[in-house]
């Protein structure tokens, strides 16, 4: 049985004026234990909305339209928010956010934030001493000055220490599944490496074993993920193994995205960033045909009107009727 199943998931926002914005449309995928799925796309493509949906966390104005998410076979959709909070978040599915500085409550010490996480999921039976011992044990794994970091306010830590603290807090309850949303953006290259190494260290130690890694940096994904999905205007437009998607993209958008990445990858011919002309369509009025058609360099006459479904092309899924 797959660890994580997403079944035709669609999500929308309701604006103040009753307008419906379809942020995520018809996303499906399954993940086996130990799998690392990379999701890439431009900002505003629905990645972050998808994250909330995958955790079953619906804070107005975000609502599920249709579809299902199952963790270890259990659906998240028909559960109460209270149940999700207590029994799913941090325990089954956890999240490593980007920009760790702002993610940590500025007026709370690291150990107190971590203790809040434990206390929120154990019903408060655990004594303060036990919690602190548990924290110390876990943070000792991270190769930092445990005492200093635990007793510090976020402002007293370096960017790298903060990001590692966030990862430590997010994985404190050994979740089955971790969603990392651009965990390395806004960090310098050296710190990025440290953070990536830490994540993989935790994977190796079995603290968690399945991960979704979201980033806009495709070169990084190639090193990190087994499979990659490309998202555009709320839809998956291509999903395959990392080799397939990075080196042999078939969807015109993926191809354009590869071209637009300024990449130092050896073997990649073009180093010049190519920008994709135009902007994604408004999701308040979803076009009936291909959502990329207006910007697509190889679009045909009927692309704008003809519905596009994901189909197998060269061993991976592509949402383009003319890709081959």
């Amino acid at each position, binding site marked *: 049985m797959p660890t994580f199943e997403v079944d035709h998931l669609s999500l929308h926002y309701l604006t103040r004026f009753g307008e419906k914005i379809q942020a995520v449309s018809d996303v499906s995928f399954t993940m086996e234990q130990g799998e690392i799925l990379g999701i890439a796309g431009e900002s505003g493509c629905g990645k972050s909305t998808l994250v909330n949906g995958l955790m079953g966390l619906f804070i107005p104005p975000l609502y599920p339209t249709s579809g299902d998410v199952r963790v270890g076979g259990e659906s998240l959709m028909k559960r109460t928010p209270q149940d999700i909070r207590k029994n799913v978040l941090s325990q089954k599915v*956890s*999240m490593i*956010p980007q920009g760790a500085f702002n993610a940590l409550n500025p007026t709370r010490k690291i150990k107190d934030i971590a203790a*809040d996480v434990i*206390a929120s999921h154990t019903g408060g039976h655990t004594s303060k001493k036990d919690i602190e011992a548990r924290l110390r044990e876990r943070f000792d794994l991270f190769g930092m000055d445990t005492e200093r970091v635990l007793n510090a306010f976020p*402002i007293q830590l370096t960017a790298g220490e903060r990001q590692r603290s966030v990862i430590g807090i997010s994985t404190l309850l050994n979740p089955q599944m971790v969603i990392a949303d651009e965990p390395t953006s806004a960090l310098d290259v050296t710190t990025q490496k440290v953070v990536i190494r830490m994540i993989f260290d935790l994977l190796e130690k079995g603290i968690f074993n399945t991960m979704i890694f979201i980033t806009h940096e495709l070169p990084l994904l190639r090193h990190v993920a087994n499979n990659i999905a490309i998202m555009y205007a709320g839809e998956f437009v291509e999903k395959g193994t990392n080799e397939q998607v990075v080196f042999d993209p078939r969807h015109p958008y993926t191809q354009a995205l590869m071209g637009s990445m300024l990449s130092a990858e050896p073997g990649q011919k073009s180093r010049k960033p190519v920008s994709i002309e135009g902007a994604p369509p408004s999701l308040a009025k979803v076009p009936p045909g291909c959502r990329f058609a207006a910007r697509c360099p190889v679009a045909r006459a009927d692309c704008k009107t003809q519905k596009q479904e994901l189909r197998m092309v060269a061993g991976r899924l592509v949402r383009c009727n003319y890709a081959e």
Partner: protein
Amino acid sequence: MLKQYPTARYILHRGGWYFLTFLVAVTINFFLPRLGASNPVDIIMGKAGSGLDTEAAREKEESYLKEFGLVQVDATGTILRGPDGKPLKSSNVSQFFNYVKMCFQGDFGTSFQKYPKKVTTIIAEAVPWTLALQLPTIMFGWIVGNVLGALAAYRRGVFDRVFFPLALLLSAVPFFAFGMLLVYVCAIKNGWLPAMGGYAGDLVPGFNFDFFKSAGYHYILPFFSIFLILAGGQAIGMRSMGIYELGTDYIKYAKWLGIKENKILLYLFRNAMLPQLTGLALSLGGMIGGALITEMIFSYPGLGMAILSAIQGQDYPMIQGCTLLVTISVLIANFTVDILIGFLDPRVKAGQMGGN
């Protein structure tokens, strides 16, 4: 120096700044009343020099002039006189230094209106009333307003839709207008509560039950007329701060982690409260001013009434004494809030150290 004691450094730094502000306030307090055409010195000098027939009255006025350093004296303390027998006026600068010296000795001089009562004596009678009225009112108003504002921000929905316009209306009502309305409805029209004063007129202040009961009755209306408006204003501010904090990443992260709702509410309240606390420091002057006017509406025997009667009697030493005292209280309250914020918000102290 003091590098290893950031807290002490922070307190000293703030304290030094407030001392400077205090000096400026004293200067303003001295020079502003002397800007106008009818400045206090000339009025006093005019009175001292003319129309006083009896030797005793003249002596009284002259001792007064001497006390305030308004006239020149020689080494033995005798007043120097001009050719017409009138006392010689001393320069503004020497008056100023005399004034500063007196201030530092805690001496605000003698009341003009209630001679020979010292200004400090009159103020000392009024201050307990003002403290008893304003301290709890401002503190309760602040706390209640902030709790309600935070709840409105967090819950939104119906509570917010009813509460917000009400709080907005309350915060827009001027202190004095609301005070007058309360007095009219609750006291004059329906006679539920007393309208004027701090206690019934036939009682003598003292530690007895009747007096405290009467003072309690007289407390209710002024309390509510300050409290409700203050709470309304604070709630409005807290609501926007709370909504702002709700959108921050650390609240989102706490929700992603599945941290308990009441814990998140606590995060929200604490962090939104910090700017509100700064706001309190900045608006304290206005609040105290408003509350003083409320005292006047209720003829409450505090500082507000003292200022009012001093203004009506053109009792300049009294006016200046009261304004200086109000300024000093505001400065002390600000200093306290500043230090409190330094302890509550790790970012403030870190910023302070980075800044130096």
